[in-house]
């Protein structure tokens, strides 16, 4: 069937164009020396003739033979003249043409280049992309030809680049200069390394070209730096989302209820272990739907952490309202108990939580700026949780009660709000949100008994900088801290960045002891 198709195709190709190829050139393909063969292939490629594709393909498929002085393509029991494509009499003893690995590589490159003349846009685009990395100086005329014909802007852009790269070795300094100028418009470390030799006097004699190359590298460096900075802003954004997810629960328990919950990090841990548990459940019983374990883990984590929160509130925190420092110590004790429980349940080692397949990969914005899907999804997830919290606090009866109780507990109690139950619910809500944050954390960092400890300082920083009881403050603080620390990391390293951030926060609190959004009013004693 395939054979038949090939024949039909070959036939179709031969019909409109007749004997355009130079027979002598084709004859060269059968030269004894590999180097001569390569030269012949390159020469043939430059014609950019569709017929050349036919011949080169036949050569790659070992069906090109030599019959006397004539190159023939033999397909089954039929023979065609290689130059014209006209059917000929089957030769008696065809001489096969040796195709070694070097020739095969050359043929593959040539065929890829010739695909630039394909009718399909996608084929041309793929070919242009492939050529970016394996362009040779001999391809310059071919690329120029392809450029002339090309109308698609995307392919044109790629071809211009490839053409410029190919022209860098041109004998005429003017052509080289134009090529360097064209390459200066790019943003790719690979192009930079192509240009680098031109800045050396030994390999580039022309001053103008050399200066232009230096300028071009500078321009590329500038754009590379821009991409790098954009990348940092993005990773700052994603770090900010992680901080926000860590801090949102605290914004409720600390910000609204006035409880220093040092076990908050362990509630994140509960969420992360919930993700791990769901992964194990899916592996054991629903291996076909393993990619869906993560969405399934979201409600599980919320309720698991909320349940732990209810237990914490009912047994310990309930007795400590209004005694902030005491809640700090007692919840620290709770966190130790939770850490040890996790060690006994899941082992002291970190467990492995895999990214679902739909979270792998990323979007490539620039050659050196790739936004990974798991980070993008975490940013989106943070927005989702933020919206959830906002809706819960501002649009539901529970939220209204929580606000009422925190503003005036006695009055709320008088009008019939069950204050004790609201306290429990609010704390459970904060814990549940922490659980959601834990699911997100399980996708980007280690899941282990000690993981919570690493987030507690950061989470408190966010809440403190944002201002107590301020959801908007927490958002701004998380994003600000995230982006600021990633930008700092760029030139100072992770640890120094972290230290400077902490010092900056300490100084910031000097200036605005109430956080970004201070509650307005006068206080004597608080």
């Amino acid at each position: 069937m395939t054979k038949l198709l090939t024949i039909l195709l070959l036939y179709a190709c031969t019909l409109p164009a007749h004997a355009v190829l130079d027979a002598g050139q084709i004859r060269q393909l059968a030269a004894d020396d590999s180097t001569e063969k390569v030269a012949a292939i390159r020469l043939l490629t430059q014609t950019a003739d569709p017929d050349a594709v036919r011949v080169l393909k036949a050569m790659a498929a070992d069906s090109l033979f030599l019959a006397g002085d004539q190159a023939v393509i033999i397909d089954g029991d039929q023979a065609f003249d290689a130059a014209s494509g006209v059917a000929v009499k089957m030769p008696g003893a065809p001489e096969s043409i040796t195709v070694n690995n070097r020739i095969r590589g050359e043929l593959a490159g040539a065929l890829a280049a010739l695909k630039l003349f394909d009718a399909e846009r996608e084929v041309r685009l793929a070919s242009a992309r492939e050529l970016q990395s394996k362009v040779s100086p001999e391809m310059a005329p071919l690329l120029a030809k392809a450029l002339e014909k090309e109308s698609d802007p995307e392919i044109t852009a790629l071809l211009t680049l490839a053409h410029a790269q190919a022209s860098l070795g041109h004998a005429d300094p003017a052509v080289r200069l134009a090529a360097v100028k064209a390459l200066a418009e790019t943003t790719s470390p690979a192009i930079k390394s192509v240009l680098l030799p031109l800045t050396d006097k030994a390999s580039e004699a022309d001053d103008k070209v050399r200066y232009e190359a230096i300028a071009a590298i500078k321009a590329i460096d500038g754009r590379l730096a821009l991409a790098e900075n954009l990348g940092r802003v993005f990773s700052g954004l994603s770090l900010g989302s992680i901080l926000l997810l860590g801090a949102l629960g605290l914004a409720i328990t600390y910000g609204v209820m006035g409880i220093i919950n040092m076990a908050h990090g362990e509630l994140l841990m509960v969420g992360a272990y919930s993700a791990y548990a769901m992964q194990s459940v899916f592996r054991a019983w629903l291996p076909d739907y393993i990619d869906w374990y993560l969405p399934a883990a979201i409600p599980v984590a919320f309720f698991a952490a909320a349940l732990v929160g209810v237990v914490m509130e009912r047994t310990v925190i309930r007795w400590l309202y209004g005694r902030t420092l005491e809640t700090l110590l007692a919840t620290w004790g709770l966190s130790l108990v939770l850490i040890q429980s996790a060690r006994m349940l899941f082992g002291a080692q970190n467990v492995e939580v895999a990214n679902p397949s739909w979270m792998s990969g990323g979007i490539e914005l620039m050659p050196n700026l790739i936004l990974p899907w798991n980070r993008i999804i975490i940013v989106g997830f943070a927005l989702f949780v933020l919206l959830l919290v906002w809706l819960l606090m501002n649009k539901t009866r529970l939220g209204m009660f929580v606000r009422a109780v925190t503003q005036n507990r006695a009055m709320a109690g008088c009008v019939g709000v069950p204050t004790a139950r609201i306290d429990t619910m609010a704390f459970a809500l904060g814990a549940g949100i922490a659980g959601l944050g834990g699911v997100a954390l399980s996708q980007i960092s280690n899941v282990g008994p000690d993981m919570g400890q690493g987030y507690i300082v950061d989470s408190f920083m966010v809440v403190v900088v944002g201002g107590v009881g301020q959801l908007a403050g927490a958002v701004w603080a998380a994003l600000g801290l995230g982006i600021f620390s990633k930008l700092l990391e760029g030139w100072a390293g992770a640890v120094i960045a972290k230290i400077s951030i902490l010092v900056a926060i300490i100084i910031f609190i000097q200036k605005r002891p109430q956080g970004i959004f201070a509650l307005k009013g006068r206080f004597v004693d608080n």
Partner: protein
Amino acid sequence: MRQPLTLRILSALDTRSWLAIGVFLALALVLVPVLHLAVAEDSAFHLSTYFITLIGKIMCYALVAVAMDLIWGYGGILSLGHGLFFALGGYAFGMYLMRQIGRDGSYGADLPDFMVFLDWKEIPWFWSGSDSFGWVALLVVIVPALVAFVFGYFAFRSRIKGVYFSIITQALTYAAMLLFFRNETGFGGNNGFTDFKRVLGYSITSPETRLVLFGLTAVLLAVTLVFAAWLVKSKFGRVLTAIRDAESRVMFIGYNPLWYKLTIWVISAVICGIAGALYVPQVGIINPSEMSPANSIEIAIWVAVGGRGTLIGPIIGAFVVNLAKSWFTVSFPEYWLFFLGLLFIVVTLMLPQGLVGLWKKLMTQKQGGAA
């Protein structure tokens, strides 16, 4: 009416407390050396090196607990960063101990081992003078004092207090821990300082040196306790307590709380630094984990367990918690965190005055029953 200083110091403690200190010092300076050196090793009364080291270590912790009580129990300021001052004192003295190793390190070089390992050619500038005991002894006091002064000045000036203060002190010690974990910082990275050989020319592992360090710690603990008792009884201490209870009112009367808080904060840091300096030669290692937030918050539990605002309570707390720790971590290693966690919870819920408060309550009940 001015009293001579001696009298004032004497009146800082009542007769019973003086008696207790006397008994404690007699035990530490006479009985322990005798039982350690003079009693045969197979005797039931022999005190092992392990025991001496353990008690010496806990006495250093008790010093920190007293320092914490000054700032928390009397100043009302909960610091979660006292581990930093402790470690700074430890590191300062550790520098001296590292230089005392001389060429006996595993590389046999003039530089401390970790510097050879990191391929450093000469001692960094901040290590200069570290081979002089006098200079290092000065650093032990000055470094924590300076850090505490700068941090405290800014924090107290803008009236950061309560939880905010606790959290930024925690951030401070956390930042310092990250800094010291780095090799480039010049303090041995995550391994810190260890493998000490000598102190002031004496072998650091010999029983005599250990006993001297032990005795020194005991004397220092007693002196610190008397000093603290005198301090809180003085006018300064009473203003401090007033600030703790109603800062604004104290301000309206005309005091500036800044200097009171700053003074006690720096004193507290210095005591911690000295405790750290005594701790390092006895335990034989100092590393950045001493600055972990968990360590600093554990100091608070010693104070809370014993009873804050009592000075003697924190010492009791430090002993109870740390003896329990060394027993638990050997016998039931997996339950230690449960125990410590429950201790945090139970003490805050049931014993707001700590063990000393419980004792006082029991005594008044007994007296009430007798009457």
